[in-house]
């Protein structure tokens, strides 16, 4: 189960993990099965773990006063899941995270990350790369959400994450893009006709 994580770390670094580092990663990351619709984190809780998805699909969302869900993140294999604000600052989370498919994940605590993982060169390099990627993706998403039309937002999403269209239902993708189900359905019909 740890092999995909080890491969992922090595792919994100120019200095591959040595044997003892692999051993400590296997020791620190704890496997966890999360069933479909089971919570990994609920609003009001402090996020104790970050998760690396080995297999499955998860979503992170907030729920507004009217009970409407707003999806901030969708994740599948080789993605990380967790509320970083709550994980680092230990504040109660404003998000829910649950599994959309039966999911196998590897969990790590902040304490183990700080003490054991961050001194590992490959991990430090991976963390820098991911921070860059995550920052760029977040900027793009922010720009899209404040300046793009619904059509353009969907096209960019479909282009960047084609697999997500197969893995998540339309209402979740609509919520992720900040548009209504009806608008998404109209856009999809229109794009098929084209």
């Amino acid at each position, binding site marked *: 189960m740890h092999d995909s994580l080890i491969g992922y770390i090595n792919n994100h670094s120019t200095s591959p993990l040595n044997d003892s580092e692999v051993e400590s990663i296997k020791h620190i990351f704890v496997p966890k099965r999360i069933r479909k619709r089971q919570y990994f984190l609920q609003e009001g809780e*402090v996020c*104790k773990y970050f998760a690396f998805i080995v297999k499955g699909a998860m979503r992170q969302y907030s729920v507004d006063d009217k009970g409407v869900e707003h999806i901030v993140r969708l994740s599948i294999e080789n993605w990380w899941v967790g509320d970083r604000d709550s994980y680092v600052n*230990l504040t109660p989370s404003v998000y829910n995270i649950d599994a959309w498919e039966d999911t196998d994940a590897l969990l790590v*605590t*902040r304490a183990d990350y700080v*003490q054991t993982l*961050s001194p590992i060169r490959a991990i430090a390099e991976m963390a820098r790369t991911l921070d860059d990627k995550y920052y760029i993706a977040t900027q793009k998403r922010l720009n899209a959400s404040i300046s793009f039309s619904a059509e353009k937002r969907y096209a960019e999403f479909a282009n960047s994450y084609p697999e997500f269209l197969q893995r998540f239902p339309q209402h979740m993708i609509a919520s992720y893009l900040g548009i209504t189900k009806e608008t998404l359905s109209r856009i999809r019909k229109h794009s098929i006709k084209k």
Partner: protein
Amino acid sequence: MYLSIIQPFAPHIDIERFTMKKKISFSTQGQRADIGEYKIHRMLPNRYAEAVGPFVFLDHVLPTKHSPDEPLKKVNGTGAHPHRGITTLTYILNGEADHKDSRGHHATVHSGGAQWMKAGNGIIHDEVVNVDSQTNDHLTHAMQFWINLPSKNKAEPPQYLPLQANEIPRQELGNRGGWIKVVAGQYEQLASKIPNYSNQLLYHIHLEAGKQFSLLSERELEYAAFLPVNNAIINDAEHKAGEFVTFDRGEGTIQFNNSSKGATDIILFGGEKYTEPIVAQGPFVMNSEAEIAQAYRDFHAGKYGEVSYNRKD
């Protein structure tokens, strides 16, 4: 960049004119770092300074006018978070701060007051700032400082001390210049009730229009000044409201002049340089990564206790 003006304030021969003024090493406007509904500028740490004396953090909760029908914020758990290795000091310029913590402390501090919490070996607190029910200004405006603790004091149990405005020592400045309040540390005969774990100072200087205040710095101390409300002239250079400046290590005076038509407020703070390693992450300030890891572990193991929200007191 800053308007340098000829000093019109001391036409008579003044000892200050023969003393070197400290140089300003940098000034910054801080970075926006809102937390929930609070509009916040993070002044410290910043890209130039990690700490000023034992002070490792300063958030400026910007002055905000609230409508009279705005619902009050409650201490209800949504803002609860731990601290360890520091003391936190919230100084309320306008508003009313409610505090509860996992060691059973609870207090409400009004405009002009402060609350001090020694996180020591770990505590969880929850704090809100509302408009002051005793004044009618509909304003909230505050500062939160984190003061680093020496290694041996990081291991001590938590403490809490609320201070209302009248419990903060204050002295009028000569020549109707305004006043100085000693929020932390000592100034002349005034001493704050807030415990000192190293030589530290936090003064609020209220300077009337056209007046001047100066202070001879101590060689071993680091100093910074912050302008929460209005502009002021600091060692001959005009600085704007919201600016934060630090001074170089050389000896000399720190001088504030108010050339505007109204009063201005200056926060002067600093202290003895912190010489142990500083490792800060999230809400913890410790001396090593291993101690940071332990701080996270202890939080999740429930060692900092829980805030009780049921008690009415």
